[in-house]
């Protein structure tokens, strides 16, 4: 193709600059910056209204995004697109961010680090994730990924006073940057192999290759990129940062990280691998097959022995990434739609669980072990029931969203013919039942050691728990409409 002159390029981009697809991103960014300014002038100690504002902003953006359902608009000469796929994921991000914001305030107050920057940072993360979901050019995806990651590094280390938090941030930063290197190198190689960074064009180029897997550059590029995403979604053996970072980061952030960014990683990866490299599915689904098995097994088995509940849930989230990878390996509509559905319901159940953990926890992250849940069922029956629902959903028991999600993921694999993958998957979830049950054992079947104490349950907290319960039960009983959305979302790419 002929090189464009700067003039032409400029005109092209201006002409083709249709801002509608990135309206939500713009909205959130503006909101975030405004909040930053407000935060500067706001008197310390009463930052919680930032919390409400940002939640409100999230809701509005959510509506805005939802309105865009069904449309298909490309923009910036095809480097950003608004389609159902992007929309669905954007909603997932907003849900996770919204829930995280709801639980953030109380925790941050308790830990004495309720700095206003928190909310802008979360919003920026969301912006980054949205870009990842809607980007159709390796560049946009990379940008989105970095916006997300950089803000996450900060968020992970947000509790400046706590050395654990620092360590988490630093670890995440170093390893994240490291993985970025691989990702970029992969992108570079693909660029070299296809001569473009536009996903659509890559698809065309690769489609023309007679035997794409014979093209070393392309293959290596694909694998390196895969590495980058594997890191983001915490797939073994690129998962090792997860437990430490999840344990160290402030709990709301952990909740958020376990849901949103993971989904974002899947969003970008799905788009790239399904749209750009469908002809190489044989190779990448093999890789994902292996990664899925490793991830599920490592995650579940290691989680069995964890006493620190945050760390346990960290391992469990690794396992869940593994389940999602099963769907990815299948790579068929059933499996990929399963990923979408699962990511959504996972945001609900996991953040819900973390909310309960925050409620049980005490200052300085104390009271964070499984044993501390002893007698919880008697002290706070309602919350205990909620927790049980989250845990059963995580364990994949019907009639919860977790079950339906797993059902679609695994049946995707079965449909594809990966029977063994499905079998390993179900055996894993059978093993996982143990450590989820263990929490319930303490909640209901052991008596509390310390005396009865009533935790204060703020409105946003309660709201979050309520939403999470609804979100992990209702899709389990009447999953149809969400599933159909997911189906449409994956059909469009």
């Amino acid at each position: 193709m002929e090189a464009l002159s700067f003039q032409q390029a400029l005109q092209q981009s201006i002409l083709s600059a249709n801002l509608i697809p990135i309206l939500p991103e713009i909205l959130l960014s503006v909101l975030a910056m405004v909040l930053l300014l407000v935060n500067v002038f706001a008197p310390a100690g009463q930052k919680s209204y930032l919390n409400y504002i940002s939640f409100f902003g999230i809701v509005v953006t959510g509506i805005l995004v939802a309105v865009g359902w069904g449309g298909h608009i490309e923009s910036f000469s095809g480097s950003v697109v608004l389609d159902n796929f992007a929309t669905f994921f954007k909603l997932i991000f907003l849900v996770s961010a919204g829930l995280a914001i709801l639980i953030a305030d109380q925790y941050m107050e308790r830990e004495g680090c309720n700095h206003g920057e928190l909310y802008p940072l979360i919003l920026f993360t969301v912006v980054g994730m949205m870009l990842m979901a809607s980007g159709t050019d390796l560049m946009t995806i990379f940008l989105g990924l970095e916006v997300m990651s950089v803000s996450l590094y900060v968020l992970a280390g947000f509790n400046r006073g706590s050395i654990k938090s620092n360590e988490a941030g630093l670890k995440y930063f170093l390893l994240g940057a490291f993985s970025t290197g691989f990702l970029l190198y992969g992108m570079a190689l693909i660029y070299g192999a296809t001569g473009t960074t536009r996903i659509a064009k890559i698809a065309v180029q690769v489609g023309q290759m007679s035997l794409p897997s014979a093209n070393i550059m392309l293959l290596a590029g694909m694998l390196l990129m895969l590495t980058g995403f594997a890191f983001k979604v915490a797939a073994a053996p690129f998962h090792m940062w997860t437990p430490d970072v999840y344990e160290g980061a402030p709990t709301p952030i952990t909740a958020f990280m376990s849901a949103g960014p993971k989904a974002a990683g899947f969003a970008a990866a799905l788009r790239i691998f399904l749209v750009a490299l469908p002809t190489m599915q044989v190779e990448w689904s093999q890789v994902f097959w292996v990664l899925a098995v490793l991830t599920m097994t490592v995650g579940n088995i290691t989680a069995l022995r964890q006493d620190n509940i945050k760390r346990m849930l960290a391992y469990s989230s690794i396992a869940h990434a593994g389940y999602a990878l099963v769907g990815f390996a299948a790579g068929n509509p059933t499996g990929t739609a399963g990923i979408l559905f699962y990511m959504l319901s996972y945001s609900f159940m996991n953040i819900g669980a973390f909310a309960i953990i925050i409620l049980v926890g005490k200052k300085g992250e104390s009271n964070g072990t499984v044993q501390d849940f002893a007698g919880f069922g008697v002290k706070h029956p309602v919350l205990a029931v909620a927790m049980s629902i989250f845990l059963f959903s995580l364990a994949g028991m019907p009639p919860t969203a977790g079950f339906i999600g797993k059902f679609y993921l695994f049946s995707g694999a079965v449909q594809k013919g990966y029977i063994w993958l499905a079998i390993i998957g179900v055996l894993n979830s059978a093993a996982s039942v143990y450590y989820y049950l263990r929490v319930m054992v303490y909640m209901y079947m052991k008596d509390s050691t310390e005396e009865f104490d009533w935790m204060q349950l703020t409105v946003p907290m309660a709201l979050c728990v309520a939403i999470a319960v609804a979100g992990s039960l209702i899709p389990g009983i009447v999953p149809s409409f969400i599933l159909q959305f997911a189906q449409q979302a994956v059909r469009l790419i």
Partner: protein
Amino acid sequence: MENLNGYLIISAILFSIGTVGVLVRKNAIVIFMCIEMMLNAVNLTFVALSRHLGNLDGQVFVFFIMTVAAAEAAVGLALMIAFYNNKESIDVDDMNLMKW
């Protein structure tokens, strides 16, 4: 442009050196420098390829990478300072509070 492979090999070597550096060095800052080296290796690849392919996408990409690298540097150094405040060290082997 005749010897693309030369550039690619150079950058591959640079990338590997960076990687190895990350794997062996103990000082967080040095590790970060190594990562920067990896990124620059990638930049080199992009530039060479873009020149070879004769389209600008690669070079545009390089600009993005540079900016992002700058941003990362800022955040990263900030984190290191925060860590140093608490631990009086930025040796990565001291970051072992959380394990198992």
